Every structure is written in structure tokens, then in C-alpha cells.
């Protein structure tokens, strides 16, 4: 099962993220893929906003993982691009069971350590503002989530 959604603005993309947030559960894993500037961080900002996190979501590239612990649920925001597949010793897997929401940008590059149950979102750039979000749930919890909010 795969959902295709077209967004026409930054606000549209944020709204999708907010809708997904409304069905959040602990250890929810969201994998984001899409070229630079496609809106992966915009999506994460939308999610964080809905979680009531008032800190500014900034790029996690430097430290790979950033934790936001002061929302309705912890948010773990990762950008694994810089790892180039070298996942050893970063402790990414530990975050899958910490009880928060995990958002992984460039998740494609660390495929073999991702949990089987997760939500994959691929963002395709159509033109300056228009994006296609290809949302693919893996596992029952994520299928149900998609049925409810998409």
C-alpha cells in the first residue's frame, strides 16, 4: 500500500506532518528521503510544532542526532547523510526503543538497520513549491495510522 499526496506549499507539507502527529505513538519511526531542499526539515518542523516543541528545529547534520525532550513526546531528529552508511557506534538503534518519535532524514542510506515496522516518506520535487509525498506504511500500526489521517 502506498499513498501519494501532492502538496502545493510549505504549509501543506507541514499540515501532513501535523496530521501524522495527531496519531502519534511511542517509538514511532518516520523515514524521510528526498533531495536537498525537498522539504524534509519542513516536515520535521511541522511535526515538532504539533508536538508542542517550542525550540527551533535546526539541522542535525553536525552531531547526526538531535533530541527535543520538552514536547508532548520526545522527538529524535536525525540526519544520517554524513555517515555514508557507517552506522556503527552512533547508537541510532537505541533511539528506536526510547519511547519517542524518531525522524530520520536520508534513511535510505542506513536501510539495513531500520526497524521493519516504520513509515517511509519519499518527497519528490515537482516544481518550486509543489511536492509529491509518497507515503508507505510498513506494519499494522502504520497502516492504521495512514488510514486514519491520509
Amino acid at each position, binding site marked *: 500500500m502506498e499513498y501519494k499526496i501532492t502538496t502545493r506549499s510549505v504549509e501543506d507539507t507541514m499540515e501532513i506532518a501535523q496530521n501524522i502527529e495527531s496519531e502519534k505513538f511511542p517509538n514511532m519511526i518516520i523515514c524521510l528521503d528526498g533531495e*536537498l*531542499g525537498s522539504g524534509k*526539515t519542513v516536515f520535521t518542523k511541522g511535526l515538532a510544532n504539533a508536538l508542542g516543541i517550542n*525550540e*527551533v528545529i*535546526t*539541522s542535525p*547534520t*553536525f*552531531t*547526526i*542526532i*538531535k*533530541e*527535543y*525532550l*520538552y514536547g508532548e513526546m520526545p522527538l*529524535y531528529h536525525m540526519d544520517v547523510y*554524513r*555517515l555514508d552508511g*557507517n552506522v*556503527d*557506534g*552512533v*547508537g541510532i538503534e537505541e533511539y528506536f526503543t526510547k519511547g519517542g518519535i524518531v525522524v530520520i532524514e536520508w534513511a535510505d542510506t542506513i536501510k539495513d538497520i531500520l526497524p521493519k515496522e516504520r513509515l517511509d516518506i519519499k518527497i519528490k520535487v515537482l516544481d518550486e513549491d509543489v511536492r509529491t509525498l509518497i507515503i508507505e506504511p510498513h506494519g499494522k500500526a502504520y497502516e492504521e495510522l495512514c488510514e486514519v489521517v491520509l
Partner: protein
Amino acid sequence: MDTYILAIESSCDETSLSIIKNGSEEISTVVLSQMDTHANYGGVVPEIASRMHIENITIVIEECLNKANMTMDDIDAIAITYGPGLIGSLLIGVMAAKTLAYIYNKPLVPVHHIAGHIYANNLVRPMEFPLMALVVSGGHTELVYMKEHYSFEVVGTTLDDAIGEAYDKVARVIGVKYPGGPNVDKLAHIGKDTYDLPLPLNDDTFNFSFSGIKSAVINLAHNEEQRGNTINKEDLACSFQNRVVDILTKKTMHALTEYGVKNLIVAGGVSANKGLREKLTYLCEKEGINLTIPEIKYCTDNAAMIGAAGYFAYKLGRRADLTLNAKATDRLN
């Protein structure tokens, strides 16, 4: 009574220990840098960093105590960087600090890495309040207002990339070797400001944005390449640096006025940037602002700054217990 803090810092690619007296006097510091190793890979490889930290940790502890001619009995408390940073790297320092605190029965004081960078200034001269801190590093770009010790109010932050990250990406695009930031800074001093780049997030807020100028540099390099033109590295570095230094200093001076603050301190690895130092020194002299920038050795990651911050945290009664964990949270406290 004098207070001696043993501080440990291992958040990225430096294993560092320091003993600091009363939050201001450096007794001994050891910094074991892994920079040469990571240079082979064009950047810090987290797993290699963790491996080197564990290989060096007890050697560095011993060397630091020997250099100070002290033993653990002379130490009042252990200060440790718990975050943010590379989790695997932080973890070695955190586990070592917890074990030391446990076997010697010493208080354990958790220190935020950025608080450390800010308190590096207290090793230069006692910090005077209220003050504004401009924090510029690989992971951070923030303006922090402090009305007294250990009170941090973030009044502005980057909305996307940190300044150091922008430098690294630009360095990669124009083909400058790791470490990118210092090398771009060097080139900038040779080149001329000839390229037309936008001034990033030039508004009335104290927030920053560097992803736009980063993209502009990438696009410019690509376009020139497609046209068969070679870019002038020195000139592009100079144009980029001028733009980011302009916006950093403009917003900093604006924040000083807005908050009625006469003391400015600069913190973090990018405070070693010559362009930034020169411009801030010039502006602060002109505006009668009391400017402190730490020596280069205190700008990069080191445990001395953690010891300075740790002293004030210790005096405020901040303690961590044996469950202390490495954290990747930015929230400064």
C-alpha cells in the same frame, strides 16, 4: 578555600582533561586531538572518534593529574560534558567521569557543551554581567543573553544550518581540504569580494539562516562549471566570509543595543575565525563595547572551558547521579 574541578570533554574528536582552580585559573590541560586521523576521511567519522576516545581516556586522565602534580584526593568535583555532541564520543567521557566520581566518591557535575564554550571566556578575565554571548561553532549559532552566572536566555538562533556547517559545505564545494572552516578563512584573507552572494536572513530578528547562502555558493559553483569557467576559490571564500561575518556582526551589535548590554563574549570553534574577530574588534571599539574573545586554544573543544563552567555549576549545587547519560539536546541549561 580553593576549589579544584577535574573536567572531562569528549563530545567530538578531542579527548581532553583539565584541572581548573576556582573557575578561572587553568592548572593543567591535556587535549588529544584526532584531527589528523579524521582528515584522511574528509571529516569526523563517529565510530573512529569513539574508538580513539576509549584508547586514550585513562592516559589523558593520568597525564592531566601528573602535569598538575596532583592526585584525585586534591579534586573537589568532576565536571563532565554530557551533550550535545556525538553520542558515542560523549559516552566515553560520561562513563569515565561516572566511574571516577564513584570510586573516589566525588560530586559529579553535568556541563552543557555550549555553557563550556561560553565559560571559556572566564579563563581570559572574569565575566561581567549582563552580557551577550555570540556562540558560533560546527553545531551552533546562537545569541545568548546572560544576566548573571549560569542564566542563559537564547535570544537568537540559526533556523537551519549552523555557521560551522555552512563553512564545511562551502569548503567542500570549492574543493578546500578538511578542516574546511579554518581553510576557507585563510583563503578569504587572500581573495577579493567579487562574487554576488545574498546577505542571509537580513531582517530585524536575532535569528540566523545559512542554508540560503550555502545553496547560493553551490549553485554559483555549478553554473560556472557548466559554463566552463573556473571559480576563483580565494574570491569566492572572501565573498562568502564577508557576507556571513556581516550578518553575524550586524545582528550581534543590534542585540547589544536592544538589550542594553555593554559586554560581548564570543564562544565556540568559529570564534577562531580571523574575519569575524577583526570585524567584531573594530565594531566593538567603535561602539564602546567590552569585547572578550578567548585565545584560539580555548575556542576549539577543550576541557578547560568545561572546568570553568563546571565550577559555577558546582557552586550552584548542580549534580548528576550515576544514571547520567550522554544527551544530544541543544537546550542550554
